[in-house]
């Protein structure tokens, strides 16, 4: 006789060290359904932004989330610059890419490291984290901080790369590229990874499209959508890169997309160092911001981040709304989990690289 019962997981779980609550229906060891309850740490940051001026909001928004912290202020600045009619200097466009792609390498490596940890391959976990640590050092050296870069200002960026720092960044990229190449090969061929991640948590391309998923989760199912290509911003239209997609739609496919996107990010960093023009890094004085509204989108490490900003002529947003990639990606979990085993739950949850901090804005 098969008995169905509910299995509560969370809000605190070893594989998901942030509060989110799941109810999982299981039949024996097999998952039959999933329900998600959010809201444990909803912080009302959108409301807070309307009580702070534009410059204060750059700092506040960088704290929505740590792993994709740079994407929030960048996208907010893009929206504000549209309304204020500011074109950021060409050098600042490249520097924004450098900040974003540095964060992407770290964020993606962190996620695939956790996958290794979940499957019990802790030497691989440590190896990936050690590689990631080089990028953490890069952030600390260039920006002075390992997570929140404080790279953006309205009209450009707050950091620059002199010859010495360009040379340092180039050397670190050269160090990391072969290491990520080896990690890529390991995830492609290692039997432990393959036996645990292949064919697990499968999501079809049609379901990914139906649920409006974005980022590596969608691309792992073959959806070729990347904001950097579809709606170019900063210097992405001047850089040469391909959108990475997978075809299997499983945990393995999503991990491979992230590793390949880290490789693309490293290449983009190298291109930026080669192509970045000289010149100012920020537009001159901030003009008065008129009443208006704007949409800005960027490709955060987890996918499309969209900002809607409305201004009313004051120095504060009349309304600021953003939607993070995790917001929709959660909805893929019930489909990914159905028919899989209880033991696969942490791995499937990790494969959407969920950001609760972002979701609970």
């Amino acid at each position, binding site marked *: 006789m098969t008995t169905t019962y509910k299995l509560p997981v969370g809000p605190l779980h070893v594989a998901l060290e942030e509060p989110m609550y799941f109810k999982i229906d299981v039949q024996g060891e097999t998952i039959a359904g999933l329900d998600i309850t959010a809201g444990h740490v909803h912080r009302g940051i959108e409301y807070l932004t309307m009580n702070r001026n534009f410059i204060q909001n750059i700092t506040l928004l960088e704290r929505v989330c740590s792993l994709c912290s740079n994407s929030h202020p960048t996208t907010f600045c893009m929206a504000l610059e549209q309304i204020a009619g500011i074109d950021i200097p060409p050098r600042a466009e490249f520097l924004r890419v450098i900040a974003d792609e540095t964060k992407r390498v770290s964020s993606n490596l962190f996620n695939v490291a956790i996958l290794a940890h979940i499957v019990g391959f802790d030497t691989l976990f440590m190896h990936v984290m050690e590689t990631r640590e080089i990028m953490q050092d890069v952030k600390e050296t260039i920006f002075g901080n390992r997570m929140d870069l404080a790279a953006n200002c309205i009209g450009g960026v707050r950091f620059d790369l002199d010859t010495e720092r360009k040379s340092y960044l180039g050397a670190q990229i050269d160090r990391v590229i072969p290491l990520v190449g080896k990690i890529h090969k390991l995830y492609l061929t290692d039997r432990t990874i393959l036996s645990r991640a292949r064919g697990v948590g499968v999501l079809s391309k049609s379901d990914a499209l139906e649920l409006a998923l974005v980022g590596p989760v969608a691309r792992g199912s073959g959806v070729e959508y990347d904001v950097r290509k579809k709606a170019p911003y900063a210097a992405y239209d001047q850089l040469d890169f391909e959108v990475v997609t997978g075809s299997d739609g499983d945990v393995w496919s999503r991990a491979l997309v992230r590793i390949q996107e880290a490789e693309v990010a490293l290449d983009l960093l190298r291109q930026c160092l080669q192509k970045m023009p000289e010149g100012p890094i920020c537009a001159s004085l901030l003009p008065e911001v008129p009443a208006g509204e704007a949409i800005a989108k960027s490709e955060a490490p987890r996918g499309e981040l969209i900002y*809607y900003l409305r201004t009313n002529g004051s120095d504060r947003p009349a309304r600021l709304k953003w939607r993070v990639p995790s917001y929709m990606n959660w909805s893929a979990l019930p489909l990914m989990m159905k028919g899989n085993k209880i033991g696969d739950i942490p791995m499937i949850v990790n494969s959407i690289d969920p950001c609760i901090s972002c979701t609970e804005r």
Partner: protein
Amino acid sequence: MKELQALLQRELDERVGEQNISLECRTNRKGVTTAWCRLKRIEDLLPCAQMVKALSGRLSTITASSREHARESGTHELAYHFDLDGDTLTVSLLLPLGAEVDSLTPLFRNADWNEREFMELYDIKIRGCLNPKRLFLDESIAPGVLDRLIPFSALVNAASTKTLWERILANREEGQ
């Protein structure tokens, strides 16, 4: 931009009627277009969403106006942001307080969380919502609770002291 604007104008004229919308398009120097469509009638939302679906568009997100704005104006302003292969169409409408707006979940499954958030945080009524259960707050908390409670940020932020006491006094008057 001209192609997208012409396409949207044609489609919207057919489905909604030229007299019931205003459409504006802006394209930035990277060639990315944002289109802004304002609806005069609430019932035209579904035909607009059907148009986006027919154009293989995607619902990106939905924005509701702030509670203060809604209280002052007597209307919620809703802005539906759709992705059209990288370009963005924002369809906005004014919803009188207490009125209902059609759910988009039958067309776009990802409208689910957005609409549940509206019902919960703004007390906006959604017609035909397929999954009208709470999203962000505990089930024991009543709808529109953020309209009535004092946010923690206001409570602990010294800069907001005046706002806090104004809210307390207003609530007391309402209670009397």
